[in-house]
C-alpha cells in the first residue's frame, strides 16, 4: 500500500518538477508574459520526489530476503536500464536535436527531467541497497554512524527550500567529514563471506558495471549542465545527489576490492559449509532409524569426501572389517600391521598421522594414512583408517577435521545404540504387557456367588507378571474345587510355572481326586518341568455343598485362616504338607494328608499368599506376620468380602509404610 502511494507521489512530484521546468523555460524566453513562481516550490517538489523514491525503495528492500546476489542483481539491472534510456535520449538529441525549433528547448527540458529522474531513482535504489549490505550483521556503533549519515542527507534536503545563496552558505556540509564517514561505513562488507566463489565473481562484474554507469551518469550530467541553452534550476547540482554519487562510488569500489581479496578464501568457506552439512547428515541418519551399518557407511563416505582420500576402511574394535572402500581386505591386513608398527596407539591417542609409512615406489601404493579411533561412552568401538597415494597427504587441518568428525560420529553411534536399546526395551515392555494380559485371563477375578457360597479373589503381581495362582472349578452341581498356589520367586519364570499350574489344576480337577491325591499327581507332573531350585506351594479345597463338607490338603502353602461363626473364633488350618517339586519322586505321598471339616453358614475362609504375610515395615523391618492377619479377621469378618479385601490391603500398606508390596500377593475369600 505504502509502495503504491510512494510511486504515485513520486510520479506526481516528478510531473510537477517537469511543469516547473517548463514554466521556467517559458519564463526565460518570455520574461514578461509568464508568471513568476516562488522559489520554495522547487524544493517542495524536488524533496517530495526524492523522499517518495526513497520510501518506495526502502519498502521494496525491506520485503526482500538477505540474498545478496539477488540484491546486487537488481541494482545491476536498474543501472543498465537507466543508462540505456539515458544513452538513447542523448543519441536522439545528438542526431535529431540540431534544428533550432522553438519547441526544441522544451524537449530538452523534458529530457533533462527524465535524466534527472533516472539518476535519482538509480542512486536512491543503490543507496538503500548498500544500506542493507552495510548494516548486515553490523554492530550498534555502525548503526549509529549510519543514522548520522542519513540525518546529514536529510538536512541537505531541508536546504532545498532555500534560495541558492542561502543554500550555498548554510547547507554546504563539510564534505571532507562526510567522505570520512562514508569511508568508515564502506568497510562494512560482512555480506561478502556468505557468497560462494562464483557468486563473488558475478558480484564483482555487476558492481563494475554499476561503477561504469555511475561514471557515465556523472559525465552526462556535466555535459547537460554545460549546455546553457535552457533554463536550469537546482536539480542535479544538489549536494544530495553529489553525496549519493560519491557514496555509491566509494562503496562499490570498496566492495569490489573486498570481493577480489576474498576470492581465494571462498573455497575454504565452502568446504566448511560442506563439513557442517556432512555433520548434519550424519546426525540425521539416526533419526531416520537406519541400521548401524548405514551410520558407519555415512561416516566413512563423509570422511572420505572431507579429506579427499584415495581409499579407506572402517573396522570394529575386534578387527572385524566393517566397510572397505577402494581397497581389498587382504591389503587391509598388511596395512594394519604396518600401521601398528609405526606406533598407532588405539587406546589413548586420538589420531596419528604417518608419513611415507610404506617405502614402496610402486604406483597406486598408499603412502600416507590417517587412523582415528572411534570412542563412544569411553569405550573403544572401532577405527577409521583413511589412505592417500601421495606422501604427507594429510594436513594438520585434515586431522583436526577428522577429529571433530569422529567425535560427532561417536556421539551419533552412541545415540544410535541408545535408540536401539530403547526400541528393544520398549518391545520387551510391550511383550510384558501382553503377558500381563494373558496372565490376567488365567485368573478369574472378582466376586462369584453360586447359592452355596460366595468367592472374592484378587491377585497383584510385584512386576508385570507374577507367580501367584488361584482358581475355582465347578465339578458337578454341588461340588466345587478351589486352589491357591504360589510359585517360588517372581517375574517371568514364576509366571510360566504359574501357567503350568493352571494347566495341571484344570486337568486333575476333572479326575475327582481326593485333595492329597491331587497334590501327589500335581507333584509328579511338576517334577519333570520345574527348574532345579523351583517349587510351588498350594492349598487345594474340595467343597461338597450337599453335605456342607470341605476336604482339603496343603502343599506347604500358608495355612488358611478360618472364621467359625458358631464359636466366633478364627484359627489357622495347620495340617501336614510339603511344597510341590521339593521331593521329586513317589515318596512325596508320605508328606501330605487331607483333612475334612464341616462348615456352617456365615463361616469365612481366607486364603492368601506369603507376599502379604512377609510385607515388611519400612523402619523396623518387622513382618506383617500371621498374628496380625488373625487379629484382622477377628475384627473384620462381618464386612462384605470385597471390603475385607480392601481393608486388609489398606492395613498392610499402612503397616509397611510403602506404597507398594515388593512381592506378588493374592487374597481369596470364601463366605459360606
Amino acid at each position, binding site marked *: 500500500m505504502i509502495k503504491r502511494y510512494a510511486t504515485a507521489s513520486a510520479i506526481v512530484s516528478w510531473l510537477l518538477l517537469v511543469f516547473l521546468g517548463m514554466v521556467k523555460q517559458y519564463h526565460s524566453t518570455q520574461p514578461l508574459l509568464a508568471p513568476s513562481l516562488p522559489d520554495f516550490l522547487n524544493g517542495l517538489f524536488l524533496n517530495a520526489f526524492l523522499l517518495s523514491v526513497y520510501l518506495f525503495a526502502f519498502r521494496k528492500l525491506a520485503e526482500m530476503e538477505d540474498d545478496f546476489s539477488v540484491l546486487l542483481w537488481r541494482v545491476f539491472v536498474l543501472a543498465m536500464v537507466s543508462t540505456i534510456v539515458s544513452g538513447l535520449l542523448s543519441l536522439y538529441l545528438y542526431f535529431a536535436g540540431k534544428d533550432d525549433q522553438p519547441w526544441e528547448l522544451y524537449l530538452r527540458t523534458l529530457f533533462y527531467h527524465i535524466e534527472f529522474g533516472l539518476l535519482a531513482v538509480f542512486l536512491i535504489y543503490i543507496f538503500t541497497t548498500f544500506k542493507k549490505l552495510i548494516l548486515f550483521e553490523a554492530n550498534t556503533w555502525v548503526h549509529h554512524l549510519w543514522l548520522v549519515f542519513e540525518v546529514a542527507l536529510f538536512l541537505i534536503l531541508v536546504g532545498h527550500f532555500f534560495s541558492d545563496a542561502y543554500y550555498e552558505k548554510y547547507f554546504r556540509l563539510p564534505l571532507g567529514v562526510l567522505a570520512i564517514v562514508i569511508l568508515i561505513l564502506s568497510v562494512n562488507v560482512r555480506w561478502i563471506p556468505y557468497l560462494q566463489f562464483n557468486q563473488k565473481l558475478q558480484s564483482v562484474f555487476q558492481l563494475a558495471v554499476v561503477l561504469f554507469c555511475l561514471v557515465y551518469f556523472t559525465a552526462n550530467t556535466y555535459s547537460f549542465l554545460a549546455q546553457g541553452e535552457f533554463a536550469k534550476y537546482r536539480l542535479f547540482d544538489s549536494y544530495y545527489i553529489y553525496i549519493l554519487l560519491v557514496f555509491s562510488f566509494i562503496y562499490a569500489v570498496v566492495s569490489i576490492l573486498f570481493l577480489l581479496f576474498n576470492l581465494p578464501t571462498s573455497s575454504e568457506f565452502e568446504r566448511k559449509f560442506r563439513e557442517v552439512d556432512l555433520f548434519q547428515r550424519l546426525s540425521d541418519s539416526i533419526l531416520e532409524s537406519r541400521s548401524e551399518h548405514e551410520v558407519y557407511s555415512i561416516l566413512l563416505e563423509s570422511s572420505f569426501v572431507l579429506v579427499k582420500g584415495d581409499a579407506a576402511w572402517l573396522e570394529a574394535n575386534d578387527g572385524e572389517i566393517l566397510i572397505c572402500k577402494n581397497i581389498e581386505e587382504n591389503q587391509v591386513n598388511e596395512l594394519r600391521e604396518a600401521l601398528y608398527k609405526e606406533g598407532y596407539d588405539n587406546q589413548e591417542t586420538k589420531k596419528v598421522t604417518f608419513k611415507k609409512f610404506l617405502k614402496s615406489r610402486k604406483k597406486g601404493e598408499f603412502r600416507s594414512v590417517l587412523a582415528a579411533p572411534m570412542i563412544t561412552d569411553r569405550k573403544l568401538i572401532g577405527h577409521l583408517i583413511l589412505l592417500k597415494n601421495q606422501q604427507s597427504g594429510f594436513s594438520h587441518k585434515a586431522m583436526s577435521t577428522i577429529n571433530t568428525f569422529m567425535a560427532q560420529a561417536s556421539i551419533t553411534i552412541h545415540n544410535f545404540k541408545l535408540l536401539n536399546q530403547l526400541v528393544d526395551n520398549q518391545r520387551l515392555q510391550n511383550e510384558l504387557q501382553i503377558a500381563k494380559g494373558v496372565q490376567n485371563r488365567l485368573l478369574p477375578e472378582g466376586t462369584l456367588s453360586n447359592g452355596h457360597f460366595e468367592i472374592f479373589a484378587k491377585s497383584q503381581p510385584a512386576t508385570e507378571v507374577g507367580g501367584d495362582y488361584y482358581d475355582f472349578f465347578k465339578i458337578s452341581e454341588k461340588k466345587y474345587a478351589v486352589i491357591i498356589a*504360589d510359585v517360588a*520367586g517372581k517375574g517371568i519364570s514364576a509366571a510360566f510355572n504359574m501357567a503350568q499350574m493352571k494347566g495341571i489344576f484344570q486337568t486333575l480337577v476333572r479326575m475327582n481326586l481326593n485333595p492329597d491325591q491331587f497334590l501327589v499327581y500335581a507333584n509328579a507332573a511338576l517334577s519333570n518341568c520345574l527348574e532345579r*531350585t523351583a517349587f510351588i506351594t498350594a492349598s487345594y479345597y474340595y467343597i461338597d455343598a450337599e453335605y456342607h463338607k470341605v476336604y482339603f490338603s496343603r502343599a506347604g502353602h500358608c495355612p488358611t485362616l478360618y472364621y467359625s461363626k458358631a464359636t466366633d473364633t478364627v484359627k489357622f488350618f495347620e495340617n501336614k504338607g510339603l511344597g510341590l517339586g*521339593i521331593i521329586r519322586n513317589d515318596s512325596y505321598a508320605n508328606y501330605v494328608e487331607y483333612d475334612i471339616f464341616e462348615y456352617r453358614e456365615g463361616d469365612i475362609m481366607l486364603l492368601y499368599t506369603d507376599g502379604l504375610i512377609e510385607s515388611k515395615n519400612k523402619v523396623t523391618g518387622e513382618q506383617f506376620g500371621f498374628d496380625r492377619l488373625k487379629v484382622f479377621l477377628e475384627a473384620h469378618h462381618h464386612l462384605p468380602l470385597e471390603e475385607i479385601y480392601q481393608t486388609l490391603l489398606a492395613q498392610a500398606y499402612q503397616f509397611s509404610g510403602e506404597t507398594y508390596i515388593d512381592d506378588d500377593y493374592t487374597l481369596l475369600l470364601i463366605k459360606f
Partner: protein
Amino acid sequence: MEVKTFDENGYHIIAVYGDVDASSSLQLDNVLQEAVDNQKQKILVDCTHLEYISSPGIGVFTSRLEDCEKGLIRIALYGMNENTLKVFKILGLDQLELMPIVDTKEEAKSRINDLQEDR
C-alpha cells in the same frame, strides 16, 4: 547377604548372614555347588545370623535333596530364628529326614552322623 565357609573337624560349615533374596540366592547356590564339587560330604548350614530367606533361597537347599538321596552329600541346617523356622515348617521341610533342621550345631552334627550310619 554374606556367606562364610570353613571346614571344622571334617564338617563343612556354611554360615549365612543377613537376607537371602532372589538375587543373592544365586550366590548361595554357587557356594553350595562349590562344596559339592569339592566333595564336602558333611555340610552344616549355620543359620544363626540368617535374618530372612525368600522362597528362591529355600529352593537352593531343597534342590540339593536329590544329591542327599544319592548319598553324595549330607546337609543339616541349624540355629534358625523363629520366623525362618516357621517358613521352613509351613513348607513342610521339617518333615524331611534327609535334611534335618535343628537348633544347635552339635545336634546337626549328630543328625548328620545318624544319616551316615543309616546307609
